[in-house]
């Protein structure tokens, strides 16, 4: 699980697992589904250029042709309508956006049409649509290239929302999203693109509504969304040095949300911390905290907490951006406070916090 514990892990007898980067996993998911199902197509700004959405669409046009892999004008609103119309006609579009922030240009189509069509028309149409959208972070992305806006989509009935935190789930979720008969908002964090995980070559669908416990522990339940799942795992390492065993849960899909797994864990540990890659107000973290407490009763838990973006616009300068996001050290510190409210204040040592960044999640999946 961690760089440290791994060193001690027993060698496996099985064949060496195949490892892929997150972008490669996305690419493979699309390629396999396009090969399987001629109705699948992928389009959006920059999908067919030489950079191919950081590699996630590279080679697809050569393989599947210009009719099924194509660039568009800068017209997010109409292009989303095109995707919805094509989906209603029986095709299975994947619409790619290099920043989630740009979804604000097609909210009308997503909220007023995609989310509602199946219901509003009494079941007469389906909208099997995947909207891939990237969250930016670091190096001056700033106010308009960094937003995690999944809460807005979670708010509206009729949309599914998934935010896989590793290459394995990226492939499985994208395949599941493509096969799903509903619009799925697919959230990809830019900093995850380079991360590797074991990714089986055979196509597989990661079921929505099933959270993954990424690390067991009895002292506190920490839910991490999107790349915050990874940051939470790092925090877990730091906490273990302080003798605190944190259970880390990656919900993977936010709609549907596997509240059972989260609530069961929180009931056992008695403490819940939700760490989101987004603002907290009316965010996924508010929803998870409220839903767990409604379900378990307030008295079931000793303490709850939320972390997310600072309640401010994202600044470009690294001096402030650093303070904008939760990180392993601040997560560990907060968890420590929830577990030992009366203990003296504790922070992980700076060098441990730095070391934590070497950790990558390696399963089990």
């Amino acid at each position, binding site marked *: 699980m961690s760089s440290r514990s791994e060193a001690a892990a027993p060698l496996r007898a099985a064949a060496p697992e195949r490892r892929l980067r997150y972008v490669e996993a996305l690419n493979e998911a699309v390629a396999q589904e396009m090969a399987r199902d001629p109705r699948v197509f992928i389009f959006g700004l920059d999908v067919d250029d030489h950079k191919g959405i950081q590699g996630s669409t590279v080679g697809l046009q050569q393989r599947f042709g210009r009719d099924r892999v194509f660039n568009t004008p800068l017209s997010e609103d109409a292009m989303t309508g095109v995707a919805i*119309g094509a989906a*209603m006609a029986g095709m299975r579009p994947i619409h790619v956006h290099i920043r989630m922030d740009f979804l604000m240009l097609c909210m009308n189509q997503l909220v007023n049409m995609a989310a509602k069509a*199946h219901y509003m028309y009494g079941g007469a149409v389906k909208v099997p649509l995947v909207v891939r959208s990237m969250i930016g972070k670091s190096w001056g992305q700033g106010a308009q290239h960094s937003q995690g806006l999944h809460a807005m989509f979670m708010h509206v009935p009729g949309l*599914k929302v998934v935010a896989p935190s590793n290459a394995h789930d990226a492939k499985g979720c994208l395949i599941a999203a493509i096969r799903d008969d*509903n619009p799925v908002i697919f959230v990809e964090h830019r900093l995850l693109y380079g991360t590797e995980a074991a990714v089986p070559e055979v196509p597989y669908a990661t079921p929505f509504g099933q959270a993954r416990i990424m690390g067991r522990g009895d002292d506190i339940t920490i839910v991490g969304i999107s790349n915050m799942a990874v940051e939470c795992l790092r925090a877990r390492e730091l906490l273990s040095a302080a003798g605190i065993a944190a259970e880390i849960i990656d919900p993977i899909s936010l709609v549907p949300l596997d509240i059972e797994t989260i609530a069961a864990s929180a009931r056992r540990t008695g403490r819940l911390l939700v760490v989101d890659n987004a603002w907290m107000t009316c965010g996924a973290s508010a929803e998870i905290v409220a839903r767990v407490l409604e379900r378990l009763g307030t008295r079931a838990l000793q303490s709850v907490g939320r972390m997310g973006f600072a309640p401010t616009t994202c600044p470009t300068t690294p001096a402030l951006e650093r303070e904008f996001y939760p990180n392993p050290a601040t997560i560990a510190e907060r968890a420590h406070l929830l577990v030992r409210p009366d203990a003296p204040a504790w922070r992980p040592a700076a060098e441990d916090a730095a070391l934590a960044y070497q950790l990558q999640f390696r399963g089990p999946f």
Partner: protein
Amino acid sequence: MAPQGDVPLQGNVDVDAGTLERLYRGLRRIRRVEEEVARLYPSDKIKSPVHLSIGQEAIAVGVCDPLRADDVVAPTYRGHAAYLAKGGDLNGMMAELYGKVGGCARGKGGSMHLIGMERFILGASAVVGTTIPLALGFALALKREGKGRIAVAFFGDGATEEGVFYESLNFAALHRLPLLFVCENNFFAIHTPLEKRWATDRLCERVATYDIPTTKISDGDVIKIHAWTTESAAALRTGAGPRFLECHAWRWREHVGPGEDYDAGYRARADLAAWQQNDPVERIGGRIAAPVRAAVDAAIEREIADAVAFAEASPFPDAEELTAHVFAE
């Protein structure tokens, strides 16, 4: 200056007797259905706001008659006419207006969200302009399918002010999609006249800059509309790119609801009178032999009575329907 790409109509277009009768039946049927809706309205049996097309029937009928059954149309919230003209089920429409489970959207959509996928009638939207790109997406699928099917997007003059309209024109032309753009220009968006909304009325000329052939029909002549569609649809089936039609029309009644509102002062009853002089129902009706016309009329009345009875008899949806269809299974 004639805009580039303009498609002039031949001087004297006309249609054969069979077509004439179909056109009459189509016009009269929409007129009478909507009059009936208006009549029923005060009874509080209709359960959603209605945007009547009375006076504008020629566009839907002229455009839909030449279409193949498997062609696709995308109506607006002012969509009774297009729904009916494309063969939408009248029972399903009436029950939908009644909020009954027998409605074409199971009572969940109402008048603004009619749908008839079995007749390739896309669902309408209450947000102006929203369905234009949907029709584009459908047209993209039809192009890939390669069976010569085409799609039609209907929209009002107001919708042409939304940015999505231009984005859609560009994409349709870029991909040479089999799509007819049909603008129903009734000069008003709710109560606001064109002068407060359009910098100029050079709409056709503008659309033509996308290399989309355009035509403007200002007199509401259903025969001309029919001729344009016949010719355009044939061209599109063999791979010609999209075309654009702007049709002037007059909405006889108020924007929403069953009545008239000339007393509100935003437009003149004299204009209504001019358009009524030219009423296509009467003009085409006058060219049909009286006994034939009487038989058509009678059949329409029976169909309407049946639809009202159907709507009355259909139950309201059960409470469980509330959460059905949020997600497709």
